[in-house]
C-alpha cells in the first residue's frame, strides 16, 4: 500500500485519488483522505477528508469528516466537521455540516443545516498536528 509522508491534505497526499479520466459507479467508501477529480455516481463515504476538484462531477450522496468542494455535486452532503466550498463549486442538494465557509461565486441550491460539531474541525485537526 502507499504511505504518506505528511498529513497536510493536498492532492498528492491523499490515500485515494480518483483521477480525471475515471468514472466510478456504486458505493465508493474509503477509509483515508480521498481526492476526486473524475466522475462518481452512487455514494461517497469517508470519515476523513474529502477533496472534490474543480473538474469533478458527482451525482451521489456524500458523507465525510471534513471536505473541500470545488466541483459539481448533485446530491446531499453530510459533513461532520468543516466544509469549505470554493468559488468553482456547484452544489444541488442539501448540506449538513458543523462549520462552513463559502467563497464568492459558488452556486448552492439546497437547504443548509448547521449541526453540533461531532468531530474535530479541519482547523483544529491541523492545529493538533502542528502541536505534535
Amino acid at each position, binding site marked *: *500500500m*502507499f*504511505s*504518506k*509522508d*505528511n498529513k497536510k491534505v493536498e*492532492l*498528492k*497526499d*491523499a*490515500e*485515494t*485519488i*480518483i*483521477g*480525471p*479520466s*475515471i*468514472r*466510478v*459507479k*456504486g*458505493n*465508493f*467508501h*474509503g*477509509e*483515508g483522505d480521498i481526492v476526486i*477529480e*473524475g466522475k462518481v455516481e*452512487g455514494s461517497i463515504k469517508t470519515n476523513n477528508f474529502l477533496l472534490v476538484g474543480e473538474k469533478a462531477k458527482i451525482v451521489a450522496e456524500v458523507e465525510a469528516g471534513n471536505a473541500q468542494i470545488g466541483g459539481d455535486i448533485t446530491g446531499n452532503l453530510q459533513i461532520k466537521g468543516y466544509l469549505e466550498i470554493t468559488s468553482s463549486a456547484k452544489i444541488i442538494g442539501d448540506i449538513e455540516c458543523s462549520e462552513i465557509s463559502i467563497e464568492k461565486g459558488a452556486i448552492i441550491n439546497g437547504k443548509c443545516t448547521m449541526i453540533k460539531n461531532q468531530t474535530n474541525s479541519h482547523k483544529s485537526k491541523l492545529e493538533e498536528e502542528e502541536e505534535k
Partner: protein
Amino acid sequence: MHIYIYDSFVNQKKYDATAARIETRITDLGLNGKIVRLGMMNSVDEVIENEMKKGAKTIIVVGNNTIFNKAVNAIARTTQEITLTRRIPLGFIPVGKSDNDIAGFFGMGFEEDACNTISARRIQRLDLGLANDYYFLTEATIPTNGTDIEVDQNYSIQIQEAGNIKVINFATTTKLPKNFSSSAVDQVLDLYIEKKGSGLFSRKPNEASQSIIPFKFITILNKTKPVIIDKSIQINTPVNIQIAKQKIDLIIGKGINF
C-alpha cells in the same frame, strides 16, 4: 541444502561460460548444493515441490523473470499444500539481460554478483498478490482500453482514456506521485491507473492524471487483453486479485528497504 534450479535456456551452449563462472563463484563462497537443470522432462513446480518435501534449506533459481515468478508460485503453493512451518528462502541468480529486470528492483545483482547477494543472505518476508490461482510479487498490469474493474464488490470503475492499469504489491518502474511509496509488507494492494502522456514527446503520466485506490478484492474484465503478472505470466480475464495469505522469504540485495 541449497538447491540450484537452472532454467532450460541456461543449458544452451552460449551460456556455458556464464554457468561455469557462477558455479566457480558458488564454490568459492562455500554455497555448494544440488544443481537441477530444467528440460523437457521436469518442471520448476515439480522440482521445487520435491526438494521442499525432502528438506531443502534454500531454493535458488537461475534464469530470468519467468522462472523467478514460477518459483515464487511453486514455493507459495507447496508451503500451503504441505502446511510447511519452516521458512525456505528463495534466491535468484539472473542470467542474461533479456527479460530480466525484476532482480534489479530487489538489488540482487546479475550472475556472479547475485552469488554474493545469496552469500550475504539478507532475507525479507514479503507479501504476495494472488491473481486467480497465480501469485505475484511485484505488479499485475493490463491496458485501460476495453478494461472494466469491479472493486470490493461495491463499485465499478471505467477508464475513459488510454493508459495502463497496475495492481501494485511492490512498485518497480511505476513513477508514483510525490510522497507515495509502495510497500510489500503491509498486506494491502493498490490499484494504480495512469493516463498515457498527452504531449508529442511525453510518454510519462503527470501526477494530475494518476489514480490510486487501495482495495481488498478486485475483478478485472477485458475481452481481448490478458493481465500480465511479474512482467512474465499472462492470465486471461476475468481475473480476481487480492492479497494472498502466503508470503515469500526472498533473499534481497543490500540497500533495499521495506
